[in-house]
């Protein structure tokens, strides 16, 4: 047994290492991670979320709604390791590592070839795309494990496995509990699988019915939150369904068209949003996104000078597509459908491209790539020895270069490029909280909200008693479409600092960026400059000052 799975065990160890190495330290905590962590801590201590809702199935935090499973799974981890970065990132890293094993067995089910399965598992273990979201506190890192389990279980079920469908039901329902994008992907892929395997399902209908029943039972608790106002708000905030074109734009179009017919033909809301969604959909198949640039606009998805896959995947995917079609592989349609359905959740959102919401693309792409690689090995066997050596050496050289470049980019070159802002890594808060705690005593403390979400970082790093916070929790939103800010607790006020007005608050500590606390306006007679906290690139993040009595 050990001997049989030895290569897989090695690959699993590589996956674990790549996901757990410096897990808690190499990147600043972002506000989503902080809110996942603090809400899990709040559940652990009080059985309620930050707003005092008892065991909720959707968590409202920093004005956003979060799926529940990741938070609940993190509760025992936080119990063991305490509330810190490592605990928050543990579950995605752990389940992400387990994905490699699941992926191995799934690929084995699809092709029944050990070599392809091992290559696929190795490719997933070192995949930049997979590491990006499983080596961080991302709900997609949890959801993806359950989706993979769902698909694997289903394929097993169609082959007559007694537990296959049941695992599939648990997996699919688990992913619905884990991540919002899966709530669209899972029904679509499940529908496809139902339709495509209807003959096999007929043959195994008893197992299938038991699984359906189990799935329904498991999904019932979350149904109310799926039709709740919070869920609707999340959909409207993130998808094109909540996007409204500006009045100026519509007016301009009407003025230029001077015809209702032309407007109705080419410029209706549905048409333009639909066209936009098509554009977003196809962006996910762009070679720039996949191989060379990734998602440059979003620091949490971005890897400097890299796409979401390696460049060596290009020839492998091309060979793989050709060979899979040529050999008319049995599960060709499953791979194609998986790949075509995966970007749909991303296509209907407002972002041009999203590696997070289209995360399910990675599996079919790597299956194809692994298949291509395996075919290339077969092809190489028929070449002359000299050609084999040249090919192998250049291949290994290319791989080593790209993998080294990825590690360099991921660990060293990328972190200083996305350290602030709502989609960044929120650097500076840990140091700020630590410093403020040293000096605050009983003074009033005003923290600027330019970098967004300070309240959740103070709660997180202070390990503030959730029971005490729940009674003070108050969210301030500038508009319906904006995310909110926690207004404050105890002596803390979180708001946008307006120095000409705020400088009058005596014996108060202020922390904010230079724009909010301009050096030229900080008169020595009025304020004492206490400290500066810096981003990774040396730029000042926060200036901490105290107004004198």
């Amino acid at each position, binding site marked *: 047994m050990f001997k049989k799975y030895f290569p897989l065990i090695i690959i699993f160890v590589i996956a674990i290492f790549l996901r757990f190495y410096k897990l808690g330290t190499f990147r600043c905590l972002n506000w989503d991670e902080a809110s996942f962590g603090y809400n899990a801590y709040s559940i652990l201590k009080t059985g309620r979320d930050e707003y005092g809702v008892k065991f909720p199935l959707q968590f409202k935090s920093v004005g956003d709604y979060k799926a529940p499973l990741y938070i609940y799974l993190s509760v025992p981890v936080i119990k063991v390791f305490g509330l810190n970065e490592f605990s928050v990132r543990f579950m995605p890293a752990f389940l992400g590592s387990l994905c490699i094993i699941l992926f191995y067995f799934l690929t084995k089910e699809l092709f029944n070839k050990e070599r392809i399965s091992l290559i696929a598992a190795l490719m997933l273990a070192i995949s930049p795309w997979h590491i990006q979201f499983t080596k961080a506190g991302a709900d997609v890192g949890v959801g993806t494990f359950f989706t993979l389990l769902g698909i694997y279980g289903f394929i097993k079920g169609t082959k007559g496995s007694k537990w296959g469908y049941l695992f599939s039901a648990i997996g699919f329902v688990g992913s619905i509990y884990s991540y919002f994008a899966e709530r669209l992907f899972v029904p679509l892929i499940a529908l496809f699988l139902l339709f495509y395997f209807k003959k096999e399902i007929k043959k195994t209908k008893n197992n299938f019915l038991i699984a359906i029943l189990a799935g329904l039972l498991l999904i019932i608790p979350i149904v109310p939150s799926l039709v709740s106002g919070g869920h609707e708000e999340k959909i409207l905030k993130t998808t094109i369904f909540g996007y409204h074109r500006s009045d100026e734009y519509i007016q301009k179009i009407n003025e230029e*068209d001077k015809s209702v017919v032309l407007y109705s*033909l080419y410029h209706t809301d549905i048409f333009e949003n639909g066209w936009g969604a*098509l*554009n977003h959909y196809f*962006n996910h198949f762009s070679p720039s996104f996949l*191989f060379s640039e990734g998602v440059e606009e979003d620091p949490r998805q971005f890897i400097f000078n890299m796409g979401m896959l390696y460049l060596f995947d290009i020839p492998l995917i091309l060979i793989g597509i050709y060979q899979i*079609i040529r050999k008319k592989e049995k599960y060709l349609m499953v791979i194609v459908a998986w790949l075509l359905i995966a970007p749909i959740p991303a296509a209907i959102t407002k972002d041009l491209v999203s590696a997070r919401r289209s995360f399910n693309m990675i599996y079919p792409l790597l299956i194809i790539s692994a298949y291509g690689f395996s075919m290339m090995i077969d092809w190489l066997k028929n070449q002359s020895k000299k050609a084999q050596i040249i090919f192998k050496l250049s291949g290994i050289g290319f791989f080593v*270069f790209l993998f080294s470049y990825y590690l360099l980019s991921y660990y060293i*070159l990328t972190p200083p490029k996305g350290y602030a802002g709502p989609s960044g890594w929120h650097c500076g808060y840990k140091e700020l909280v630590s410093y403020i705690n040293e000096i605050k005593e009983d003074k009033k403390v005003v923290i600027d909200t330019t970098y967004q979400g300070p309240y959740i970082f103070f709660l997180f790093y202070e390990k503030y008693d959730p029971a005490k916070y729940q009674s003070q929790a108050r969210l301030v939103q500038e508009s319906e479409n904006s995310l909110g800010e926690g207004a404050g607790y105890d002596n803390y006020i979180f708001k946008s600092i307006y120095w000409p007005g705020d400088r009058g608050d005596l014996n108060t500590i202020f922390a904010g960026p230079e724009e909010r606390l301009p050096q030229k306006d900080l008169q020595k007679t009025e304020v004492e400059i206490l400290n500066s906290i810096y981003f990774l690139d040396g730029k000042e993040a926060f200036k901490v000052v105290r107004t004198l009595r």
Partner: protein
Amino acid sequence: MKKSKFTKLISKEKNRVGLILILFILISPWLWVLIRNSNIDMYKNIKLINFKDEAIIDQINISRGEMSKTNVPSIFGRIIVNKVSFYSIEVTKRYLETFDPQYLFFNGDLDINKSTRSNGPLYLSFLPLLLIGIYSSILNKDKLKLYLLGIFPLIGAFIENHYESITRIPVFILLSYFSSYGLIYLYKRKKWLALLIVFLILFEFSRFVHDFLIHYPGRLNL
């Protein structure tokens, strides 16, 4: 006798492909924009990426600066972060941009003189035909055209401006060829689907003409 019929058939199909190719090129947005703005010197901004480009040198220096703060051996850094590797990355990016669906079918060149910005150089309805055309070329082992598909984007890959269109015209023509080939291939097998795609192409064409005549001049004058 049989041979000559066969030859005739081949030449007939070739003629059809050629005719559709000409039609596809004639209705393609890139040609309309090119003709409309032919009075503008579109070549003046076409420059090769300089191996010693300041942006590339800056990136290398910043990256090496960041690496120097860590324990990474400098020799390792120099092997990976250098002019050759960063220049290659820039060229690869531009090469791959050629196949970017957003560029080809939705927005086109970043320069408003070379694209309407609400259409790509080709129509989205070409896409299924294009894929079918490439697929059938693979099946027919039409290697030359497949090689050309890999070679033509090289021209744009060495141009400084991202998504530059003039240097990618050969690619547009080749893609139009694959589309016309795909249309013939599809028409033989699924006539209704081919006709549906033709209808979609006509709709996209009308949408383009509408935008080109009514909205594009306004954007161009901004």
